[in-house]
């Protein structure tokens, strides 16, 4: 009997009204490097189950990776539901037809051995030091994984999706005598093995070249002006806060200042923000969400106008509408809400963006806070560079940028064609005007 069948049978015995079973199975190979050297070779697999049960309008959730204790899992979820409180909006979505996103699973990833993974990992750590011996790798990792998620519920929903990914990161600094550069990192990945070596090479070289540029950094004069954000810095200051501002739970619970702002101008004309979870061959894509609702392309901000919030089933029911397919999470968590694969419409090539900058700074990493409630962002510029007349002139240290997320969104003047994979999605470089830069 499958795990699903065993759970369903136990649920029937307990007279549970509604339930949802989420199963996740992963096999992975991982190679980890530390201080320029191989440290660990790792292989693992697990199967985990998350169970949501509904007793009337009361909900309970339990998870486990111990398949020998399915009885306890059911017992616990039912017990928690019994002890919970009623909420008229809890419940399951009605099953919908799901069209599968193409090309998310490659068997060659599943068949990749630990030895092959090690070979790829060696590329990742050797390339930066071939570029320059001053580079010191703090850590680097490559993870080759194949994952299957299955979801079924008492309303007849039954879905499964397999995904394969090769993901990597490299993190480190440049050291020259007493001089230590800022930390930097690159992340990357693909759904297949073919072509991954080229991607690793590109990331590792770009990481190395960039970090060398930050040795011997100095401060600049304080000013208010152009700030060019790397994809990573853009994700920290804008992309992640926006995703929280449009989260229907934040809106309904009055934690988002964007309550009642649908149809209003929240950003400059050049900003168009789309969630695109259905792009074939993307590590960020998925066919259905944590509740089994099909994912869809969602235009969230169009030419600066806020078009929609994003919903899971619970928040959608509160407004008597349908989920937008944004239930997020895995077997260990209840469905929450998040953007799946953020995408921004580009306006210019990066070279042209540089040409627009008379005096400004480039921010490689932003180490600070961007508060989506108060709207304030403030933090240190890492790996930054001063820009004059379209050219990078010297690296920066001891420099902070700050301002209001809401005001700065309206001062975005360019979005690059070039994109980079960050932990939050594949994002562009973005130019913002009138940002306060404090140095010295």
């Amino acid at each position, binding site marked *: 009997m499958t795990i699903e069948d065993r759970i369903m049978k136990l649920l029937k015995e307990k007279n549970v009204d509604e339930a949802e079973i989420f199963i996740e199975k992963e096999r992975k190979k991982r190679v980890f490097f530390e201080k320029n050297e191989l440290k660990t070779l790792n292989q693992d697999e697990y199967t985990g189950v998350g169970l949501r049960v509904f007793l009337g309008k009361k909900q309970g959730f339990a998870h486990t990776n111990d398949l020998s204790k399915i009885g306890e*899992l059911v017992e616990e979820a039912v017990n928690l539901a019994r002890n919970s409180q009623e909420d008229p909006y809890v419940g399951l979505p009605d099953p919908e037809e799901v069209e599968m996103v193409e090309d998310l699973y490659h068997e060659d990833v599943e068949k990749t051995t630990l030895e092959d993974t090690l070979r790829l990992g060696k590329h990742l750590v050797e390339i930066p030091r071939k570029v320059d011996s001053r580079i010191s790798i703090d850590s680097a990792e490559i993870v080759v994984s194949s994952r299957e998620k299955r979801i079924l519920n008492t309303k007849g929903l039954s879905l499964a999706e397999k995904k394969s990914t090769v993901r990597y990161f490299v993190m480190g*600094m440049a050291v020259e005598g007493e001089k230590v550069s800022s930390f930097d990192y690159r992340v990357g990945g693909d759904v297949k093995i073919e072509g991954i070596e080229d991607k690793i090479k590109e990331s590792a070289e770009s990481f190395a070249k960039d970090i060398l540029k930050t040795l011997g950094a100095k401060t600049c004069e304080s000013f208010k002006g152009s700030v060019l954000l790397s994809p990573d810095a853009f994700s920290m200051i804008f992309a992640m806060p926006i995703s929280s501002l449009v989260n229907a739970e934040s809106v309904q*619970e009055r934690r988002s200042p964007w309550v009642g702002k649908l149809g209003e101008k929240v950003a400059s004309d050049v900003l168009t923000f789309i969630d695109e979870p259905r792009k074939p061959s993307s590590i960020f894509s998925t066919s259905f969400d944590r509740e089994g609702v099909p994912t869809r392309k969602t235009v969230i901000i169009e030419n600066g106008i806020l078009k929609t919030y994003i919903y899971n089933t619970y928040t959608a029911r509160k407004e008597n509408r349908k989920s937008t397919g944004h239930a997020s999470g895995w077997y260990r968590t209840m469905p929450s809400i998040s953007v799946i694969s953020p995408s921004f419409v580009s306006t210019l090539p990066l070279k042209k963006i540089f040409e627009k900058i008379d005096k400004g700074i480039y921010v490689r990493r932003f*180490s600070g806070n961007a508060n989506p409630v*108060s*709207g304030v962002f403030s933090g240190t510029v890492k790996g930054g560079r001063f820009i004059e007349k379209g050219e990078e002139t010297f690296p920066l240290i001891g420099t902070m940028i700050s301002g209001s997320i809401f005001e700065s969104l309206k001062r975005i003047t360019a979005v690059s064609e070039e994109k980079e994979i960050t932990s939050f999605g594949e994002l562009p470089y973005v130019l913002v005007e009138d940002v306060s830069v404090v140095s010295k």
Partner: protein
Amino acid sequence: MNAEEIRGILEELVDVVEGVVQLRYHSRKTRQLSFQNGRIRNVESGRIAGVGVRVWVNGIWGFSSTTDISKDSIYKTIKEAFNSAKMGEGLKEKVVDRLTTRSKKGVLRVEETRPLEEIPLDEKIELVRKLDENPRKLSNKVASTLARYTEMIDEKVIVTSYGTSVIYKDSKVDAVVYVVASSNGEMETGFSSVGATGGWGELFRRFKPEDMVEEAVKIAVNKLGAKYPEGGVHTVVLHPSLVGVLAHEAIGHTVEADFVLSGSIVKGKIGEKVASELITLVDSPNPQIEKGASGILLVDDEGVDPMEVKVIENGILKSYLHDSESSTIFGVENTGNARAFLYSDEPIIRMRNTYILPGETDPEEIISSTKEGYYLKGLGGGGQADANAEFMFGVMEAWKIENGKLAYPVKEVTISGQAFDVLSSVDMVGNDFMFTLGAGYCGKHQPAKVDAGGPHLRCKVKIGGRK
């Protein structure tokens, strides 16, 4: 299978391959409850268990894990870890020929006053309900509330080829309340938290739920209409909560031996003056320092008996934090800082309870003797620091000090600087002491429960302001 039976199997299998072998069974039961704006948000529980196997052969670690706690499966997992390690043979340039270890035996248990498992679910739900509800009673400016309770009940069995054989049980627990206050279109946040390694008694050992509610509301409401700080370098009085953040985030990470080896700012600086002589900074696993401190550790995840480390003593850098491998590289004692979050995580160098020792001055006197500056309390948003000890922290609550008095609240304060420069600028150290980071998790590839704290300190830092 109970822990003793699992220990029997692990002891039987620990010698089946060559090399150094670490076997670690870890079962974790979690519960999480939350309320927001008067409604229950989630009631969750989980159980994650498995055996993590590390085998060290000629300088390379092979690591594998299994969720099947049978003898056959653990045997296979050990073989797999061994074969993985062998695969890396010859690939490492600088290989040490041994690991530095210190074994431990016995049944270890962190003391709990009112153990979490004995507290009925009802009582926990009621706690969270009140934490969520009460802020709205305190101020009509409170627009949104969220309260959360999380517990983790851990049981480990660690058996190693160098003689460790322990059963280790502890519980980690935290509670937080989060408030949004709103007025005239302006929104501000306030936050309060408690955390402990221990039971219900340890969780509320210093602050009661009503103190948390009051604090969170006060922080959020005070920020409404508050002024912004002036940018620039200022004299500041840091509350123990920020001293803890500074000790952990900005200094602590730079002295983790893995970061030192990859070139952190303190590399080669043992014996040098790195801070004011008023500063002694410690990382300690000991339950004696304070019952309930979240970073209490009775054995580390390599099965090593952990020890207290004086990182900085009277301003002089004395020691880094080590695991079995880094201690061999540096030729020093293993401090027992290797920790793993789950059975499937590999032990890496992490802090435990990191703090600055108290000095002699009454904290009130520190403020009253400050003509102009800021009083800063609590971490607001994520704190970050770099290998060169450059840090930047958001501040949750801040007051302008004028003529020795807290004059008015200010908001959106961020502080930055180089942590050792900041510690060198310390001219007054309070005679008080508090652990304050108990609800927090440190993130470094994987989470870890830590604590940090200290006394009040007066020093100079850069404040980010609006130009």
